[in-house]
């Protein structure tokens, strides 16, 4: 984990004039859809940036381009100073519904990414176990996904992405399908993990509270463009997230983002 600090650009992400369009056939007519219209933003090492916006605003597309699962039609994407070409071990993706491989145990799921990276033998098992412990699943290593709750599955998903020691953690609405209590405890744990690992996190959400609680900076998107960037003035570490919700600073920051999101609705 220390190796990352050698490179000054490590964990730095930048998108420059990135556009994405694709053609769809709707009722026999070929239409071009512009999912992203020349968006640009930078993310500093160890920063947590939340992408928020209504569905169809392009936030997930931006994340998938960053991951290398899709390619931009135009523009430049770089992570750690290197141009993104396809997927790489410098980025770890946490999927919306965890997407664990159902035939593997929790530990084997974490090992999957490590094996792909070339790790073998005892180191493989130890590393997987260490990351399961990091997400609080020490005792569930031998369970298969159908024996895990939704929250536990997503913890394994986070462990799997973190285990390959990426510079940047990309998260696609990872807590969206969880119940409120589970979501809150995972939000707190994610902040703890980030404080320990110092990973850059880019997190897609449509949950206003989640965005304010976790973010250093919030990027509000609309119809394929960046509408507004809002810095969250809350200090780090954030401490008890439940108590934080009750503070006037949280309310103020939340209102700022709410206004930005509502400005969108007025336009629509």
């Amino acid at each position, binding site marked *: 984990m220390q190796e990352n600090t050698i490179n000054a650009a490590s964990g730095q992400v930048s998108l420059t004039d990135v556009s994405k369009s694709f053609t769809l056939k709707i009722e026999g007519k070929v239409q071009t859809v512009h999912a992203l219209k020349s968006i640009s933003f930078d993310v500093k090492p160890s920063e947590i940036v939340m992408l928020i916006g209504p569905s169809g605003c392009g936030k997930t597309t931006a994340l998938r381009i960053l991951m290398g699962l899709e390619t931009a039609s135009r523009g430049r994407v770089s992570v750690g100073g290197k141009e993104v070409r396809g997927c790489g071990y410098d980025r770890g*993706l946490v999927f919306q*519904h965890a997407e664990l*491989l*159902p*035939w593997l145990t929790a530990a084997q799921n974490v090992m*999957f990414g490590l094996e*792909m990276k070339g790790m073998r033998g005892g180191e493989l098992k130890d590393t997987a176990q260490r990351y399961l412990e990091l997400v609080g699943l020490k005792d569930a290593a031998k369970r*298969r996904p159908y024996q895990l709750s939704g929250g536990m599955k997503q913890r394994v998903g986070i462990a799997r992405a973190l285990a390959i020691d990426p510079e940047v953690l990309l998260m696609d609405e990872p807590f969206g399908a969880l119940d409120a209590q589970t979501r809150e405890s995972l939000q707190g744990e994610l902040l703890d993990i980030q404080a320990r690992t110092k990973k850059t996190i880019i997190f897609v959400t449509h949950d206003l509270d989640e965005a304010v609680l976790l973010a250093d900076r919030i990027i509000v998107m609309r119809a394929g463009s960046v509408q507004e960037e809002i810095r969250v003035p809350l200090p780090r570490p954030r401490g008890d997230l439940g108590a934080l919700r009750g503070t006037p600073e949280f309310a103020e920051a939340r209102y700022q983002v709410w206004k930005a999101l509502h400005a969108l609705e007025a336009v629509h």
Partner: protein
Amino acid sequence: MMFATLEEEPKLKREFPKWAITCLSVAFVILAWEFFGRDINPVFGSYPSAIAVAFWQLLKSGQLLSALAQSMQAFVVGYGLAVIVGVPLGLLIGRSRVLEAAIGVFITAAYAMPLVALVPLLVLWMGLGFTVKACVVFLMAVFPIIINTWLGVRAVPKTLIEVGKSFVASDFTILRRIVLPATIPYIMAGIKLAVGRGVVAMVIAEFFTAISGLGAIIINAANAFDTARMFVPVIVLMVLATALNSFVGLVERWVAPWQSEISGRDEG
């Protein structure tokens, strides 16, 4: 200290076992057949006790076992080849756009091929021996295996493939580590379908050659109007196919133990 609420052991759900229901059902059908079958002219029909006598005679003379061995050799070779060829071919067609477009149409057409009409031609090519029987079994069994595997590959969720891609897995690794295990239920369904078709194919081939195997006993007994004797191989084959099906089910639970637990069905 004991908990007051724990007065009773939690009861395991006790249901009438499935195998017992199956046995009762089979016994009922055999008894009914025996009861009503006795009134029928023995040329037009037969009944279990008469078939049992014929079975004993065929067994004592050694005819049944040697015929069974001849038939099974051809079946095992043809069916084994169908599995060995069908599964990889189905996987490849399902994963490759080009192969799907180029070969898929032949597979679909060949599945509906009236093989009975082609057996005389195959006999002309390969003679009356073992080869033609194995070949007919292969041709009948391979297509349901290919088609099921192919459909299974297409049903693999795109996100599971993306899990592989996000860890920079090669196409071959994705095929082996993700697509293959995810497709196992479909493959097994195809392999089970192929048991029945393979058995039918074996008998058809032996009808045409009429000099060996269980099919030869059937056709020779039928020509001699010895209906009870004719039924012996028919029933032996039905029992055999049922046993093979259960065996494939066992293999499935061995290679994919997670599957029955995910679907919540015990296939007893």
